């Protein structure tokens, strides 16, 4: 059905904007390693683990940092975290220093970090050519 299109607006005038360090959020792709095996944490438990890591290193102030678990895959224990740009260092240091989960050894591996969520979808270092 031909829709009466409104007359197309004039071609867009050229405009260029450069945003320097303007991203409010930073994204981390992390993987949790549980060498001792055992039960895998659910999404909520995973987030609780991140919050306890933050509380341990940065206290209540750190624990209040707004962290979002955008995606969580229980099979590979990998997730994408979103944090405000000012809290990136706090979160990364807290994850690095976390050692125990329910008194089993655990370690966070930060695979990729970027101020753009789009950059996490295409990591050339994990590009496997068959």
């Amino acid at each position: 059905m031909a829709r009466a299109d409104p007359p197309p607006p004039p071609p867009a005038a050229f405009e260029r904007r450069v945003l320097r360090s303007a991203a409010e959020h930073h994204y981390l792709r992390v993987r949790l390693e549980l060498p001792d095996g055992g039960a895998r944490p659910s999404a909520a438990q995973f987030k609780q683990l991140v919050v306890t890591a933050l509380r341990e290193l940065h206290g209540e102030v750190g624990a209040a940092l707004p962290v979002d678990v955008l995606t969580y895959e229980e099979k590979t224990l990998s997730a994408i975290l979103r944090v405000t740009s000012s809290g990136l260092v706090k979160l990364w240091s807290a994850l690095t220093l976390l050692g125990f989960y329910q008194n089993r050894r655990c370690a966070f591996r930060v695979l990729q970090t970027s101020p753009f969520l789009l950059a996490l979808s295409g990591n050339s270092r994990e590009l496997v050519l068959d």
Partner: protein
Amino acid sequence: MVRFKNRYVLCEVVSEDPRCRQCIEDRAVGLAVREAIARAHGDYGLACCSVSFTVKYLNAYTGTVLLRCRKDFYRLLCSALPFVRQLESRNQRYPCFFNTLHVGGTIRTCQKFLIQYNRRQLLTLLQNCTNEEERRSIRQSVLSCSLTEEQSQSGDEEDDDDTETD
């Protein structure tokens, strides 16, 4: 070597329980403040603040405490002070809270502020005191603690007489 820059936090221990006063000593206060910082700012905050954290001056009668910490991290200390809820010493625990009066770069500025602050306290007491005898003792103590005399004797002891009249 560039000298270390410190900040001195002058605060007042306020507690409803009169018995709390006798358990104010530097170990208890230090412990309570460290715990509060650990709770509020975690290991990182505690480590930063305890670089040169000491209770420099403590006066159990007036309940004034002077804490020292590095200039870089005094904000962590000030933000953690409200988290102190009780003082514990010789396994007695009394609820109290810290009321921050002044943050200064040197002990002298804190001391000068303390004197101004106490004089203002005395004046407020003067307005709302009831009988004549109290009024006379307050006026006498106000006159005795003017700043000029202070240089002669040691600066810390001169204004401790206002506690009797609370």
